């Protein structure tokens, strides 16, 4: 109990003092995971819609890939992205290994299958009758798609939260492609592992509390968006 109490006290101290190193780590965590989630949504939502509404050969196979991607171990993603980005790798020329850009790429790869699968499930679940109703009311293709997306709002926001949750909590890939470099690629998760390694359990607990608060804050916002009652309910 003492350990937990020490950690909570430390967390409080860090937040009150606005420890610049911790602020930097928090900001980087939000930037990297936020950007990765955004990219995964930009790829994932259209892809999910395509898989849900389209009918083409190989569709079921692609769906199975998306579902499989949800269980893809982040550490495996980290290893493979590293191999590609190392100096000896095919993309070594980009020089982005051990930079936030590499972390964003790895995290986007981890989050995208989550977003695709959740979007697919949310859109595919919409009654086909609704589609017919909308078309009967004279909706054009763009209006149709937008109405369906609004209808699937619950599932789509769950998709965004799943993607975000998956990457803000991720440590293996971030450590491998980022290197946990102070001031450059150190995020809350990799910093926590390092503090545990150093035996600074109070700091580690403090960082984990801060991470939980951050993750909850974002998720609470998204939840309110998801659960907002529309004018017609």
């Amino acid at each position: 109990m003492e350990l937990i109490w020490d950690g909570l006290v430390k967390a409080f101290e860090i937040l009150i003092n606005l420890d610049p190193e911790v602020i930097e780590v928090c900001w980087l965590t939000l930037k990297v995971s936020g950007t990765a989630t955004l990219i995964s949504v930009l790829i994932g939502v259209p892809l999910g819609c395509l898989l849900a509404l389209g009918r083409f050969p190989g569709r079921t196979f692609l769906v199975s890939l998306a579902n499989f991607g949800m269980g893809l171990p982040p550490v495996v993603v980290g290893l493979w992205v590293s191999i590609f980005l190392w100096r000896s790798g095919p993309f070594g020329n980009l020089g982005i290994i051990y930079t936030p850009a590499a972390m964003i790429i790895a995290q986007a790869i981890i989050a995208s299958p989550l977003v695709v699968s959740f979007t697919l499930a949310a859109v595919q679940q919409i009654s086909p009758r609704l589609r017919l109703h909308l078309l009967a009311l004279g909706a054009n293709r763009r209006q149709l798609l937008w109405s369906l997306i609004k209808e699937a709002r619950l599932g789509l926001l769950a998709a965004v939260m799943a993607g975000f949750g998956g990457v803000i909590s991720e440590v293996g890939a971030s450590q491998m492609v980022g290197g946990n470099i102070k001031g450059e690629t150190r995020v809350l998760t990799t910093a926590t592992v390092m503090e545990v390694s150093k035996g600074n359990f109070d700091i580690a607990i403090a960082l984990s509390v801060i991470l939980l608060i951050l993750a909850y804050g974002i998720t609470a916002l998204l939840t309110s968006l998801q659960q907002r009652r529309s004018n017609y309910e």
Partner: protein
Amino acid sequence: MVFRKTKYLSLAILVVFLFSLAGCASGGDVEKKTDIILATTTSTQDSGLLDELLPVFEEQSGYKVKTIAVGTGAALTMGEKGEADVLLVHAPADEKKLVDAGIGINYQLVMHNDFVIIGPANDPAGIKGTATAAEALKKIAETGSLFVSRGDDSGTHKMEKKLWTAAGVTPEVGSSYQETGQGMGQTLTVAEQNKGYTLTDRATYLAQKKNLTLEIMVEGEKSLLNIYHVMQVNPEKFSEDIATKMNPEGAKAFVEFMVDDETQEIISQFGVDKYGEPLFYADAGKNEADLGK
């Protein structure tokens, strides 16, 4: 079809995004030559020494050091593959292979500390004060007492294996010999929780002492020296593709920094105010055979 349009649009946005990220991360295919990649070990980073030295180096030289702290095996491999510019490690037998191959150049002794065998206060194997580490390990094996190993091919693990060989024992993984496959910090936690013996470097032990009830059982023997060297990775040993991405000038500056008088002074004072004793002994310029005398 509108579905295809949204897919292409998002793909286009993604491509633009990625290129802009790559662009802002570095200058394209010419890595900023102010960056040096230093491959070192987790225990070196965990000691906190680099947090003290690197800001001094960066201010003096204008270079930016990207410290990648990994297991010794990984650090040496990074050197072998040219993924790092300079190495700071403590596994002399394996470092020798790199130096002999011409990959490690400007190989300099920096500092040392020592390993200690720690264990539960009640000392079930009765090894406290044993003269040599090898003898102590033999007793641990004979009494079937729990020994926790790093099992990760690190400098510490290699030292441990050397000692088992000297003891004439081949430990087998089982209930009395556990391998954590992790860094020293985590291994100490496991040893503490399971009340076992383990081999650790003194610096990590001192830093973690507040979390431990385990005590030092065996120390001070010459075979327990933990010796740190620094070396540049030689660009000439790699393809042009990789060599152009390396920063040999920065690496040289770092090596010179580690052995200069001011830095050596910082090293010899490091840890004194916090632990009452230094965590490292500065050795630049000395003959390795003279260490520990």
